[in-house]
């Protein structure tokens, strides 16, 4: 029975360290990607603001499916 408590103790310690590393690893990953210019996360916040169907997407899904604006001569209202 004592063995189980000992293993539980080690497992508890391991998981605490492991999950803390994962958490901080993710934060570092986010900041590092931004610093290296791989991805600018903050620009995605604009998606809620520029959300008219005629607005240009922040990132186009594909070349085939262009934004409405690209194929449409009508000027944007706002």
């Amino acid at each position, binding site marked *: 029975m004592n063995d189980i408590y000992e293993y539980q103790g080690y497992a508890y310690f391991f998981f605490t360290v492991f999950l803390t590393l994962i958490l901080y690893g993710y934060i570092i990953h*986010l900041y590092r990607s931004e610093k290296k210019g791989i991805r600018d*996360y903050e620009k995605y*916040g*604009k998606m*809620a603001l520029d959300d008219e*169907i005629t*607005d240009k997407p922040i990132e186009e899904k594909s070349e085939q*499916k262009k934004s409405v604006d690209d194929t*449409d001569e009508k000027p944007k209202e706002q």
Partner: protein
Amino acid sequence: MQNNAALEYDYTIAKMFVFSTILFGIVGMVIGTLIAAQLAFPELNYLLGEYGTFSRLRPLHTNGVIFGFTLSGIWATWYYVGQRVLKVSMAESPFLMAIGKLHFWLYMLVMVLAVVTLLMGITASKEYAQLEWPLDLLVVVVWVLWGLSIFGLIGIRREKTLYISMWYYIATFLGIAMLYLFNNMAIPTQLVTGYGSWLHSVSMYAGTNDALVQWWYGHNAVAFGFTVPIIAMIYYFLPKESGQAVYSYKLSLLSFWGLMFVYLWAGGHHLIYSTVPDWMQSMGSVFSVVLILPSWGSAINMLLTMKGEWNQLTENPLIKFMVLASTFYMLSTLEGPIQSIKSVNAIAHFTDWIPGHVHDGVLGWVVFMIMAAIFHMAPRLFNKELYSKSLVEKQFWLQTTGIVLYFSSMWIAGITQGMMWRAVDEYGNLAYSFIDTVTVLHPYYTIRAVGGLLYLIGFFMFAYNIYKTFASGKEVDGSTLQNKTPMSA
């Protein structure tokens, strides 16, 4: 899938769900106010024979506000926000439009059947999972239809990256799907034994296992019904209404994964001091406390979104609703973990502090956010100005007063109850009988009913405002709909 100059977002389905949100909100809250009054004045139990008793009406209240009002609100906003952040119109896909309509009407059918069966006393007797197995199967179909709508719309999107609200909607879909399936596993008794009613079923789990699965479900129904989709809403509607992009997109991602990892383990706190293994109870407590971090991550992110723009709080009542919603989110996500600590739980468990906690969360956070979302959407759905700004203001203060009366009376009642139940004399005998607590609590139950009534009146004001917007609001120019919602004085 042609692009053309006339392409616009199609809000047909969103409008249908706005209607059902208001309908079920009224039904659920009228019943809630009535049963609150029944607790204070028991004679009110006998107004409608067996159909008017607390025991029949309480499941109708919870199912009405959770699966009626809140789910409708989630879907109304999904069919609105989904199109906008993906930059694709429902009108582009007749298939998705048909799925959306089927989704709505099948859902309405399930809700009608739910009301009828619960009123008749047909129940699986599991909290928030009372519906019997034939209805459960229909619920699964409704859920799959929503899934088709989500992933179908994602499939035809123009915007490559999914906005953070989308993550939360997807998590709601996946989370509830998993929880609902596992908790509602049941054996229809007649099909197996040949005896009894064909509607009756027995849970697949027994004893403590049943309790564990039930509260893993019950607590996560709060997580994926009352938290995750409401965060989806606030991440869209607060930035949009205020014209401010979310303060930190990175924080929103971190909070998302934090919430997903932690929430699923916290349900054990409902079973503290029960027959569940002690380590599971401790785990429930620990994860509940850790849960403060991702919860506050989202809430603080919302408050910081208003940085430098706090003047909007006085100018725009919708901002007021949303800021108060995120503040109540912070309050209830601090209160819940405190209640989960074992020594606090020893006093709080089974007392009125628990419904007090639930209601500062739902009245202050969930309903405020859904109403703010509908206030924001209504002028865009109907191309009309919001009917009355002053009515929104009055409603805000009336309902805020109602919430304060509700939770403060339940805090006092709950802690009084907990202390009285535990009090012993010098020989170790219980100092009070149950009826002593009931007598002491009566004034607080009355205050709670009054608080509920104020909130209900506020909800009727909301419904009236939306109705008038739709029926006689002033036509509005599309160019004024970018951020702040246009409203008549």
